[in-house]
């Protein structure tokens, strides 16, 4: 049997896995029967919990749990889980392993090659970290696809013969992307992509948490780390409720004291005004780069869970003067599209007439220096060679001269980014080129950069007078870590034992009771304690029918308590 074609949406808040079969993508459920697996990892002794159980443990075991680690991808930040210190890509690899296990159970086949979605505005370092995470989970990321492009593919597949110019507004848990596309004759052409890799739903929760702290009367900065964490979780709940209704009564427990706050949608919008401002910049960049006007758009598509917030939809409607669309669930679109991209890479016959062209979201160029009149040399300027939003694959060339007389070498420093100073951009690599001695400016080199859709960047410098060459290949899939290191880490990561799948429903259920116990007060606590003991007793009895009956009965009560404490 052929390898299944798999697409993965590795999100800041939730992750999904999707298979492409019989000409259409299909989302796969996890052990709990849900499509969304929260991207949260928790350590329980030597066992790893991923997903809903881990999310509930955020309240009860904050020190053993990590969430929103996608934001730290490509950095050296480490997360403390119990006694272990883990990097973002290691945590992500645990989430990927969970998705892999669930999908393998659902399909009855092993999975190896996958397409993983990343925010369009992820730079090379962040992309490399994502690929390393796949490798550590025993997966081979054959291609990374940009999230808004994936969403567009999902929408494009619904209407294959359509012809339209549209915009994808993708506000996820931690990242924001805007992409303008054109769809005609089966060609999905990305015209421009822009974004903010550090702006997402989590920032809105944080802004609301700060507003809540002000309402309580304790400034955010004065709260202890734990209290901040609890408040952030509460704000997240409040945020969800405020998307549905105009006000929300939050009952929260902070440092042992109970508070009741009334939050209105207006409060929330005020707290997020600065974030809304930041959303405008990428949109403007995109339109400037495509030379289009907002009127030229046929559709505006919303993707990402955070676009459920009414203030976002309002802002989009105002900016584009039209109602945005959400015909595919904004949480699912990216995963569906990732599977479509996987099918495109695998050249699935169902997609013979579909072609997708993407652009480079960043400019790629080299460092240059200038000499001032008084002889001072100022270096560190960024000279783009492939400008952002160039359709890929692309190959461009530029020429550069020597600065001093009898200079024998030229240093080529490759950077990715938009800032005029290289120090604010991402360094990709460096090499030296020998040039013959000569007068300043009389010798020089051509630098050619070739960038292909799989993320491979090839740089070649040629000396102008004697034709000597030097070059460098930067690929996505060789990260900062070498192959050996990845193999070593893979081994390390495999030492983490996943919680047994059969048990997962029960573990998640127990975690839920414990979380509610933490939140509740008075009689409810007694009730929950009783339930906890009863359920643990049933677990020891090992009668599956009895356990599942109990889960059903208690579930209703838990729902009721959940509703009371968060609404």
């Amino acid at each position, binding site marked *: 049997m052929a390898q299944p074609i798999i697409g993965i949406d590795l999100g800041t808040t939730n992750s999904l896995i999707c298979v492409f079969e019989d000409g259409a993508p299909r989302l796969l459920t996890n052990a709990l029967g849900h499509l969304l697996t929260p991207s949260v990892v928790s350590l329980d002794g030597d066992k790893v919990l991923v997903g809903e159980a881990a999310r509930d443990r955020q309240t009860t075991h904050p020190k053993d749990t990590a969430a929103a680690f996608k934001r730290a991808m490509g*950095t050296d930040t480490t997360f403390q889980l119990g006694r272990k210190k883990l990097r973002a890509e290691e945590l992500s690899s645990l989430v990927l392993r969970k998705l892999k296990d669930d999908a393998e159970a659902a399909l009855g086949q092993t999975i190896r090659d996958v397409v993983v979605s990343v925010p369009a505005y992820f730079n090379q*370092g962040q992309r490399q970290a994502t690929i390393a995470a796949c490798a550590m989970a025993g997966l081979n990321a054959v291609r990374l696809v940009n999230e808004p492009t994936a969403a567009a593919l999902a929408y494009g597949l619904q209407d294959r013969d359509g012809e339209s110019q549209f915009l994808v507004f993708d506000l996820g848990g931690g990242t924001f992307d805007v992409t303008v596309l054109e769809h005609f004759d089966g060609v999905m052409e990305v015209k421009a992509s822009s974004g903010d890799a550090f702006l997402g739903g989590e920032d809105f929760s944080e802004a609301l948490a700060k507003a809540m702290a002000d309402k309580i009367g304790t400034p955010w900065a004065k709260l202890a780390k734990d209290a901040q964490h609890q408040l952030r979780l509460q704000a997240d709940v409040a945020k969800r409720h405020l998307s549905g209704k105009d006000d929300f009564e939050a009952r929260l427990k902070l440092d042992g004291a109970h508070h009741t706050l009334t939050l209105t949608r207006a409060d929330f919008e005020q707290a997020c005004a600065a974030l809304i401002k930041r959303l405008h*910049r990428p949109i403007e960049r995109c339109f*400037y780069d495509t030379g289009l006007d907002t009127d030229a758009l046929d559709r505006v598509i919303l993707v990402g869970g955070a676009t459920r917030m009414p203030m976002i939809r309002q802002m989009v409607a105002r900016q584009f003067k039209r109602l945005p669309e959400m015909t595919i669930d904004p949480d699912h679109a990216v995963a569906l599209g990732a599977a479509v991209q996987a099918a495109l890479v695998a050249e699935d016959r169902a997609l013979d007439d579909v072609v997708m062209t993407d652009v480079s979201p960043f400019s790629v160029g080299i460092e240059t220096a200038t000499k001032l009149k008084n002889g001072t040399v100022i270096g560190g300027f960024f000279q783009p060679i492939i400008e952002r939003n160039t359709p890929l*694959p692309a190959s461009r060339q530029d020429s550069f001269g020597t600065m001093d007389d009898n200079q024998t070498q030229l240093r080529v420093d490759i950077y990715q980014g*938009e*800032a005029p100073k290289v120090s*604010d951009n991402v360094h990709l690599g460096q090499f030296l080129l020998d040039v013959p001695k000569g007068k300043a400016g009389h010798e020089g080199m051509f630098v050619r950069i070739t960038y292909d859709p799989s993320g491979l960047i090839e740089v070649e410098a040629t000396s102008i007078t004697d034709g000597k060459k030097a070059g460098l290949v930067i690929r996505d899939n060789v990260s900062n870590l070498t192959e050996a290191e990845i193999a070593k880490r893979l081994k390390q990561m495999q030492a983490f034992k996943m919680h047994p799948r059969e048990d997962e429903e029960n573990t998640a259920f127990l975690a839920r009771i414990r979380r509610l116990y933490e939140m509740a007060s008075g009689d409810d606590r007694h009730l929950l304690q009783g339930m906890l003991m009863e359920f643990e007793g049933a677990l020891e009895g090992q009668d599956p029918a009895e356990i599942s009956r109990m889960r059903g009965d208690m579930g209703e009560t838990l729902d009721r308590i959940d509703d009371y404490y968060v609404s």
Partner: protein
Amino acid sequence: MSPKWPWSELGLAKRATEREVKRAYAARLKQIDRNDPAAFGALRDAFAAAKNGALKEKAAPKRPRMADIAEGRTGQDDAAPITLREPQRAPDPLPEAPIEHTPAAEPAQPQPPQTDDAGHQPFVEELFADTPEPPKAPAPKPAQPWGVGIGQLDALAQEDPDRAQSIFQTKFNDALRSMHWDTKALDALLSLDMAHDLTLRRSLEAQLYDTLQTRLNDPETGYPVDMARVIETHFQWATDGVGASKRLGWRRDYQLLMYGHARSVPQSSKPRIATRAKDKQSYVWHKISVFAVLFLLTISIQEMKGADDYIVVSVALAVLFMFVRWLTMLGAAIIVKLASLLRLNRPAIRLAHWAFPATTAKLTTSLEFRKLGIFALTAVVMVALYLIDKYA
């Protein structure tokens, strides 16, 4: 006649309409090796050229938009041009409080220079008094255009877009041209919904740039950090230099402008990536090396004279240099002064000038210059101690 480029590249027999060009491109794209940059690039170039030179299509009725079909609307609605007003704006829950400004209390503002002598506002008023469908709202409309607060402009734009726009422009000019850069008003204006119109925004950015350029050369005003922050929030000249340079064109002062406000970019908006750690490390080494130099210096002086005061002085200096970054700038300024006062020989003066170039901003932004400043300072400390030794 055989077809010419770009039509030949696309497999077209002759100049075609845009629709045909797109179809030909799509067909061609499916044939070529899309991973070959040369083939793809050639096709893209031809596609771009052909789209530019395509025959104008007849003014056929616009095809129904996908969005409309999805919502069950017919293509008919499309005949109506898209209005500038927003079709479905929810009523604002917040009472629109004027964000700031007390325009009514101000005397009539000097007219912005770019308007004609007749005066901007009355002219606009007149113009719209004559329009066929006067959109005069009955009750709460302020009598004078300058009686409208910034916060009310968005609401006004709903009723009377042109008037709102002219008021907006006046307020923008005032904020820009006021002696001490009214950055708060600028920020409030640029945050308005109406300021998010893309064409207007480009023009505002250009106006802002031109004003800055003339005022930067004026030593009296300089470059306020507040202003830099507003620019960064709204136009991102520092973080999106590539985009800004395309919008504004490569101008001579551009680099200077970048340096001037790079300081104001909040750390959090810079990409937080692993490569930055390297900088930090070298900075620590740099600190250590400065300490070492100063230490050696004090020891050597002690050998000469054996005065404990020098140690205290230089250690204190070292601590200051290390922890207060801007002091290096101040220090560099002192070198220049000292060098000229003491009439040191030419190399010393040159060194000092080197460390203190014309724009002080460069000193703080570039590590190279920071290093130079430190080295020059060390030299000055040495000279100063030597002089004290000699004359005291």
